[in-house]
């Protein structure tokens, strides 16, 4: 530990402790004990709102409503005037004045709350340190109700977010069940590390790695797939540097916090849901069915019979799920327990996914000032996977549909032996489907424990410990005698064990002084990650068996890593009346990944929220139409961790001489001054309410500048090194987000809520400090260059005449201009979503969601291979075979990459969901509270101009740089799911 690091730490800790103690020890006025009572109800129906929250502003004092909607607050407070806030999830908060004087028992009365159909008045906690009304925030936070996730029937929790959060590009990269979703919040903010946001469940940071343990050609799932969408109560998404105070050097990609369901006051509730569904491929390629193998000019031409092997690859996939949840509680103890069992087939034959998920959440008041909350989640999943995607290797099933000429009969002989395909270096896809195995097993436990103490009326302390541990085990088993590629057989086992521990201590202190309110939040956090990956493989297998010990030639490797991040922060929010809120925060992060002299990194933030509509003059001027108007401004810095754990070390590798083990230095020099990538973001926005909040608008513009991007900088080879990972690059993301929500109709018969979101992000690398380079595993097509967006497509174009038409050669074939140029951009110009929610009477509900992306390009490598004459499976090649096009037409064309860059813009009918709720004599007769039947369709159709399966997929999965790359990837299936929910 260097001296500067120690002194930094000491100074910082001293500041935090001093500020905190100063607040604690301020002069206390004479206090008196009061009993404050009241009732909270639904303003429309008059029903009690069981569990509604009542708090006295400027204090930590509060209570929740009991089964009759009644509450009682016992508080020791100084006499004076206070404001009491009554809030309940899904309702608008109502604030009333409260005068505390001599009288010890104060009755607030009956408070009726209105439904908050547009989620205007939500309370958020992510990135704020303590619960805070959206109104007070200077930055945009997107929120999403759990029911929207559960009713989406998406394959994974993250896939359910698509189209539901403005400014988020959510992309399901593959139709393979078991995950593979990438989320970009306000663009990509890194080049060499993961661009996925930080995921937090009930305050616990969870692992979302995409571990490519075995090579499946590019496909890899991400670990958010382990979570159960049914358990989600709500989601908060913080897109920018506003999360800096809490997550410092890990906040560059934004934060997604998931809150799971918790028990509620009242009689126990049991909910059982069973669902069954089917999925199929939306669109397949038209294949070459021409009766000859070669063009007429070729003397060796012979008659052939062709097949469409897509029929053997794709199928109608079935799925089912059973979910049972039980919840309840009393004033002191609340619980939520659930279990879910899922079984899902993939639309590619032989692929499937099974998952068992168990969760228990407990909330317990230990005494009047101490509350304990615990959560436990266990997941086991098993999936049969099929290699696909030709980014790495040529063993994929769809890959070989493209590569193996379809005049070949690939079916097995009478003994069950598959023939060697025409391209013997690759595989026979029918054999891969039938005999090759690539199962994945995941065991995961996520636990959390939280203590919340309110030892004084204006102080709360929260300690939270989180534990996330999983074992992911992947195998590949290829029996001996395989027709191609692995003739001697191959068996591989790869296991990753990961453990992440988090602990956070946060203290919140509030002070009211006349019109000013101060909220101080200070905290410490510690995070520890430990991972071990072991990979063993053998070749030369004995017949029949495919386990590791059946092989002869073995190799094994192990990789271990440990990471420690340690942070502390101090945040102050000052509120003036209910109008103006200023927040400033500082966070200091230390991480084991940074160089010793750069250990401690400071991340500041500041924000302003000005609710103009709370000014008295507003009501008189605009109040009747523009009833709500808030201006917000936020500035902040955050960091990004390096991808590697040990990049700061110069290491030595084995190189033997004279049969003795020796060591030589790695050509990568360790960087002793490694720092986080640093993002500075400014966002400015406004929130509007029109016609008494019938229409709600949120608009935000942002600019993010990322400096100190980690890139490999070339070193002079005369130093004995080739490069060093260094903080040298810069990039920017600029864009806007607009959300318009409105109540189109609202009466006793029909409630219709409509929402439209659009967002734009422009990404540009502003400094590369070196030559442009091609991203790994993109065949040189995806590229990074100064002045260009990340991962733009690059390659040769057509030779053209001056009028732009193709310059054909003497035979009438297109020609390639060998000079490589920019061909396209995989980043969308706009992301759109349009949703409509209808509620007819109490019983019928309909949800329709269209969403899409506009302006992004997709590189269709699949079509390139399909029409390459050597393989020739595409419909287009028929024209050359028939003599309509000159011989060599497609062979010339396949070298022109411009041809395969297609417009990937699409609008999909993402969700159509129709539900019917029954709660009448019939359900009562069955002993049920109610019963719901719901039919949901996903990805029903797509409006696009794309020639391949699906413009949405990406062969490189969650890769940061290789985006929009279609190369034999499983498309998203069109699914229909019917569910029945019994509530008792």
């Amino acid at each position: 530990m260097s001296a500067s690091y120690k002194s930094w730490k000491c100074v910082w800790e001293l500041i935090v402790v001093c500020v905190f103690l100063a607040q604690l020890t301020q002069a206390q006025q004479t206090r008196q004990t009061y009993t404050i009572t009241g009732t909270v109800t639904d303003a429309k129906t008059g029903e009690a709102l069981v569990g509604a929250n009542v708090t006295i502003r400027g204090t930590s004092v509060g209570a929740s409503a009991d089964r009759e909607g009644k509450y009682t607050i016992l508080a020791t407070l100084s006499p004076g005037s206070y404001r009491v806030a009554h809030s309940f999830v899904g309702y608008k908060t109502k604030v009333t004045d409260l005068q505390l004087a001599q009288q010890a028992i104060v009755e607030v009365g009956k408070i009726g709350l209105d439904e908050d159909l547009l989620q205007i008045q939500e309370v958020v906690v992510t990135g704020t340190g303590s619960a805070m009304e959206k109104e007070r925030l200077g930055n945009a936070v997107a929120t999403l109700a759990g029911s929207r996730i559960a009713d989406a029937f998406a394959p994974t929790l993250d896939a359910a977010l698509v189209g539901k959060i403005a400014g988020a590009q959510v992309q399901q990269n593959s139709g393979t069940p078991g995950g593979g979703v990438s989320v970009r919040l306000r663009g990509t903010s890194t080049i060499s590390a993961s661009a996925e946001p930080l995921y937090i469940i009930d305050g616990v940071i969870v692992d979302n790695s995409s571990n490519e343990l075995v090579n499946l050609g590019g496909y890899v799932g991400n670990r958010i797939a382990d979570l159960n969408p049914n358990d989600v109560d709500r989601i908060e998404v913080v897109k920018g540097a506003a999360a800096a105070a809490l997550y410092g050097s890990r906040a560059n990609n934004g934060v997604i916090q998931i809150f799971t369901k918790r028990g509620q006051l009242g009689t126990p509730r049991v909910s059982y849901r069973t669902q069954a569904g089917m999925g199929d491929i939306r669109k397949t390629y038209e294949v070459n069915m021409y009766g000859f193998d070669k063009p007429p000019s070729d003397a060796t031409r012979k008659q052939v019979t062709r097949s469409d092997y897509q029929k053997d690859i794709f199928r109608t996939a079935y799925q089912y799920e059973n979910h049972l949840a039980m919840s309840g509680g009393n004033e002191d103890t609340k619980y939520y327990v659930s279990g879910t069992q899922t079984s899902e087939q993939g639309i590619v034959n032989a692929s499937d996914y099974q998952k068992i998920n168990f969760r228990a959440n407990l909330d317990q008041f230990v005494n009047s000032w101490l509350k304990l909350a615990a959560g436990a989640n266990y997941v086991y999943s098993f999936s049969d996977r099929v290699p696909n995607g030709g980014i790495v290797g040529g063993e994929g099933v769809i890959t070989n549909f493209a590569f193996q000429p379809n005049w070949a009969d690939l079916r097995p002989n009478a003994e069950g032996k598959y023939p060697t395909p025409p391209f013997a270096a690759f595989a026979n896809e029918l054999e891969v489907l039938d005999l090759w195995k690539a199962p994945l097993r995941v065991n995961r436990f996520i636990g959390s424990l939280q203590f919340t103490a309110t030892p004084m009326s204006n102080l709360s302390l929260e300690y939270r410990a989180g534990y996330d541990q999983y074992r992911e085990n992947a195998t590949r088993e290829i029996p001996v005698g395989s027709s191609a590629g692995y003739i001697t057989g191959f068996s591989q086992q790869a296991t990753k064990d990961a453990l992440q521990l988090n602990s956070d201590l946060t203290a919140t202190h509030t002070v009211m002084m006349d019109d000013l309110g101060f909220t101080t939040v200070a905290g410490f956090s510690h995070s520890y990650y430990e991972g071990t990956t072991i990979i063993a493989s053998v070749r030369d297998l004995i017949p029949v068996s495919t386990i590791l010990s059946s092989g002869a030639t073995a190799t094994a490797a192990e990789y271990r890593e440990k990471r420690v991040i340690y942070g502390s922060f101090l945040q102050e929010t000052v509120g003036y009346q209910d109008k103006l809120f200023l927040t400033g925060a500082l966070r200091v992060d230390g991480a084991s990944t940074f160089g010793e002299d750069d250990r401690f990194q400071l991340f500041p933030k500041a924000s302003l929220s000005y609710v103009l509509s709370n000014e008295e003059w507003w009501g008189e001027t605009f109040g009747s139409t523009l009833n709500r108007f808030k201006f917000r401004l936020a500035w902040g810095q955050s960091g990004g961790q390096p991808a590697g754990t040990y990049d700061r070390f110069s290491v030595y590798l084995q190189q033997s001489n004279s049969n003795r083990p020796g060591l030589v230095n790695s050509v990568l020099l360790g960087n002793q001054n490694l720092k986080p990538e640093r993002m500075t973001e400014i966002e400015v926005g406004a929130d509007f309410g029109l016609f008494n909040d019938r229409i709600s608008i949120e608009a935000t513009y942002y600019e993010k500048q990322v400096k100190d991007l980690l890139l490999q900088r070339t070193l002079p080879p005369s130093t004995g090194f080739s490069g060093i990972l260094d903080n040298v690059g810069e990039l920017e993301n600029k864009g806007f987000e607009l959300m318009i929500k409105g109540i189109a109709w609202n009466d006793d018969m029909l409630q219709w809520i409509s929402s439209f979101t659009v967002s734009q992000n422009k990404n540009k690398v502003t400094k590369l400090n070196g030559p442009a380079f091609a991203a790994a595993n993109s065949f040189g097509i995806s590229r990074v260059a100064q002045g260009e967006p990340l991962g733009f497509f690059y390659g040769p174009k057509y030779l053209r005449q001056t009028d732009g038409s193709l310059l054909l050669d003497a035979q009438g074939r297109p020609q390639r201009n060998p000079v490589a140029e920019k061909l396209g951009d995989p980043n969308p110009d706009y992301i759109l979503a349009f949703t409509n929610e209808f509620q007819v009477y109490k019983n019928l509900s309909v949800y329709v969601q269209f969403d899409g992306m506009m302006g992004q390009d997709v590189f269709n490598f699949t079509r390139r291979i399909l029409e390459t004459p050597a393989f020739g499976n595409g419909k287009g090649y028929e024209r050359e075979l028939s003599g309509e096009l000159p011989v060599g037409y497609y062979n010339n064309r396949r070298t022109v990459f411009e041809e395969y860059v297609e417009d990937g813009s699409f609008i999909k009918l993402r969700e159509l969901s129709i539900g019917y709720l029954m709660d009448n004599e019939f359900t009562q007769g069955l002993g049920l509270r109610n019963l719901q039947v719901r039919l949901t369709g996903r990805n029903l159709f797509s409006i696009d101009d794309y020639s391949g399966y699906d413009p949405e997929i990406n062969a490189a999965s969650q890769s940061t740089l290789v985006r929009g790359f279609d190369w034999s990837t499983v498309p998203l299936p069109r699914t229909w799911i019917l569910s029945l929910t019994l509530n008792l």
Partner: protein
Amino acid sequence: MKTNNLLTLVWCAFLLVAAGCELDQLNPNAPTEAQVLSTPEGIKALAVGLQAQYGEGVNENVEVSNFLTRWYATMPSSVLGLRELETGGSDVQGFNGTVNNMWSTHYRTIKSAEDLITNAPKVTLVDGTRSGIIALAKLYKAMSIGELIECYEQVPIEVTSSLTPTFANRTAALDYVISLLEQAQQEITATPPSADFNASILGIGFDLTNTIRAMIARYALIKGDHDKALSAANLVDLTKTSSIFYNSSTSRNPIYLITIQLVYYRPVRTWRTNAEAGDGRVAYWVSPGTSNSFLSKPVDDFNQFKTDNAKFYVYLPGEITLIKAEAYARKNDLANALIELNKVRTKATDPAGIGAGLPPKTAATLPNQGAMLDEIFKQRQYELFITGLLLGDSRRFSKPQVDRTRNWLPFPDTERLSNPNTPTDPAF
């Protein structure tokens, strides 16, 4: 206030717990620089690795030398970079693969050698082990710089102190090489290498003492210090050989991989057909072939390094004798030059298995210094065909430009782009 005290206590306890978590995590996956350079095991392992680094690049020096002197021709399977060396001139640019690889592999060896020279004295080692390691490191550094300065006009000679090393000119580099070698010699003279060094660090088949002497002779001759060359050559025990060890698994002979396994190039047939009739060395190096190269030159097959564990001699006994002959000749002592020359011409074989078996020359047939040097040059061409010395010879014996496709390599782009000290490229 009681709660306040309690809170302060909790707060402090948390600080202690959190502060106890170590931010200085070590990398468990590979030894780090600090671990290698400050421990006896690390230093010894680096000395082993140093020799492997040198050994994996011996082909590059030979390729530059023999393509630039037109004795090698690429086959269709070759990489483009070698073909650029073959055609030479402006075809060889800073991005050329060999230009870059030769540079970077040699500097990896030099970097390891410098680390050993700096750190071996600081680590607890048996005296003889330390002296052996330092001498070995100085020798390998000298050999690497020596090979570079025969291909590039200027080269950095001290590299670990800066991330942008400065360049030394040819004279300074040669002086530096010779002084390194003399220091190595003094090191082992003062403290003979330990048994542990000889048995577990020094490469199998490598003769440290004689190699240092041979290299002093080689580079003194190149520098033009003929007395020093002669005295060092006289000290070399010609009954010994010194070679790089290869095996069939972890360290395979790179010349085998490229010439036999990959067949990137073959020797030009005129090398064989121009030889003096009856020269036994022709069959040692090549066997007659029938194929043509990619650029349609008739080529032969290689007859050396035909297995992946074939050893590579760092110097040949014949080179030492020819150094003596050349040194005498350049001092105009033609009588002694003839004696040494004829030793090479007439030997039927030697410890390396090379023998010309030719009749001796007489003083009458080599009447003057020019004729003598011409004959020595020719003997070097046949005695030392695959040793990487032919390019330097061609320049030193002032052969016409047409004999070479280039005189010097350009500096690698990778160096130029990141090191502002890189000099301008030589014209040819």
